[in-house]
């Protein structure tokens, strides 16, 4: 994971069109107005059509001419176009969608899916990591513990949240909250969205590797149902650090990978520019991961990607989470832990030959 490249990438996409908008505002309709500025290369045809529709609407208002028929047709076409483009995305383009600065983040989903969220802070050892948040939440008729990576919207918030790259204290806070949930018998939801664990001197000094390792060990034995969802970026160990769960779900444009495409490109190809090939080779897309048996469900995104419609994305996500919780709640707790162990125990593909006598 190369954070610097990642930051540059974000900056290149434009730093602050969000100014003036609350970071977790439920109504995101203003986004359409800035799509032009923020769109990815392959989204250009979508943006052009969106602009045409907007112009047509303006025109009809101004002149008082009814063009509803035409607008409806164009909107239908737009929906189709979004779907078509999405269907033919390369793995690298999906990575770009997963990193889209307008993509809904954990707190957006929490506010859209939960009636209550009581955030809890700190690892009781060093600090409170803003890149990994969590707390009690009420979702439908269920009381749960939710923990998730959190990225920032504007530059200041991005820095405060370390671009969603958690420090050891983040992982330790997450574990503290999960163990609290276990004590209270509450199911746990984790939302994964990180380029990777934070690469820094302090993180190493405070045991980044140890913090993640302990989470892997302890999560494997939690005696409550755990559902993990990769909502955006599933960046290697930093993602897995809150990812040992009974069910692993993923949004259709999210990715989950052992290494960032850039990192893989620079190690194997010795050329960062080969990230398109690396993304292809790593089999990091939702559907690839489903085929490999790593994720249990791929959650559909609204046409064009989750950033086009937060509400629909949140609705799909909530439905999937509730479905898996209700299944898991039927399993006796002791069995649950053993089934979780076996789930990870079975992961891996290898050959075992019988030596010739």
């Amino acid at each position, binding site marked *: 994971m190369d954070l610097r490249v990642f930051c540059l990438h974000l900056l290149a996409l434009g730093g602050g069109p969000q100014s003036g908008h609350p970071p977790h505002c439920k109504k995101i309709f203003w986004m359409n107005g800035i799509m032009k500025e923020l769109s990815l290369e392959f989204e250009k045809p979508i943006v052009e059509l969106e602009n045409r529709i907007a112009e047509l609407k303006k025109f009809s208002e101004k002149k008082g001419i009814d063009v509803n028929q035409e607008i409806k047709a164009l909107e239908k076409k737009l929906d189709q176009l979004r779907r078509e483009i999405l269907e033919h995305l390369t793995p690298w383009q999906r990575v770009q969608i997963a990193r889209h600065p307008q993509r809904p983040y954990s707190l957006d989903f929490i506010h859209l899916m939960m009636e209550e969220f009581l955030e809890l802070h700190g690892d009781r050892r060093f600090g409170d990591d803003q890149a990994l948040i969590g707390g009690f939440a009420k979702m439908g008729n269920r009381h749960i513990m939710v923990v998730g990576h959190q990225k920032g919207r504007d530059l200041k918030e991005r820095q405060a949240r370390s671009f969603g790259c958690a420090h050891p204290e983040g992982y330790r806070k997450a574990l503290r909250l999960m163990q609290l949930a276990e004590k209270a018998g509450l199911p746990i939801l984790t939302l994964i969205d990180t380029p990777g664990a934070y690469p820094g001197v302090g993180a190493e000094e405070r045991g980044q590797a140890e913090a993640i*390792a302990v989470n892997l060990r*302890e999560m*494997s034995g939690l005696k409550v149902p755990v559902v993990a969802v990769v909502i955006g970026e599933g960046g290697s160990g930093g993602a897995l650090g809150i990812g040992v769960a009974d069910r692993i779900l993923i949004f259709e444009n999210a990715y*989950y990978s052992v290494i960032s495409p850039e990192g*893989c490109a620079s190690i194997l190809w010795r050329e960062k520019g080969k990230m398109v090939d690396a993304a292809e080779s790593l089999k990091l897309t939702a559907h690839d991961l489903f085929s*490999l048996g790593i994720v249990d469900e791929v959650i559909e995104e609204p046409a064009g990607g989750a950033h086009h419609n937060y509400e629909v994305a949140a609705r799909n996500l909530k439905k999937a989470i509730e479905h898996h919780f209700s299944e898991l709640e039927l399993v006796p707790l002791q069995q649950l832990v053993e089934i979780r162990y076996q789930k990870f125990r079975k992961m891996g593909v*290898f050959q075992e030959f019988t030596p010739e006598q």
Partner: protein
Amino acid sequence: MALFKRPNFLLTQSKKRGVPGGLWTKCESCQELIYNKEWENSLKVCPKCKHHCSLSAPERIRLLVDEGTFEEFDPNLIPSDPLKFRGPKSYPEKVLQDQAMTGLKEAVMTGRGKIEGISTVLAVTDSRFIMGSMGSVVGEKITRAIEKAIEEGLHVIIVSGSGGGARMYEGCLSLMQMAKTSAALAKLSEAGLFFISVLTHPTMAGIMASFASLGDVIVAEPRALLGFTGPRVIKQTIQQELPPGFQTSEFLLAHGMIDGIVERPELKKTIAKFLNYFSWGRR
């Protein structure tokens, strides 16, 4: 034991750069030329600068296990190519190349052996095999070894040496081996058994962020590079010079991340002492 009769690749490597006919080995740290006999006697620790040169898995086992007591587990596990990974070199090509270079089938050897008479389960990674990285085979062999230890009531020793972490060629399947091995260690602990983690140069990324960090006791060889993110990436990210000695064994000791630093000639004795303490308590 046939295991140890394989050609010694560390020595043949030293032939390059005009070092005469394999008689001498050049220390990779201080460039001192050391007579091979002396090099072997010193367990590949440079007599001048104390640099601990990497040991192969068979050499490490020979160092730690009482002669003639090692029985290898699962020697017939080999990687497949689940992603059909397309890189500058294909995965099967890379595997064949490193199998030929190391004489090993994969980056870890596991088995049962006695350490000063105490039966233990061992896993030793070999940093030469795709940088000692963990794919499905390494994860599976370590997990099987831990499960075997639980079955037989033995303690576990894992010697880690991996600059590669989770192996890229197997994508997320490699990442999941971190969870798999860590979960197995949770079971070992529940069974009241102990795990000694020995860290050697280098132990990084996915190996360090899973089993290697989970020892009841963690010791490291001197001056090994140990950490999560590689120093080059951190330097690039923070755009600053790294503090001296960053991510060395000594750095981790100073920050409370390991129990001690043990020089190679003392390693076996030290491990045996820990093992004894595990059994002396009243449980």
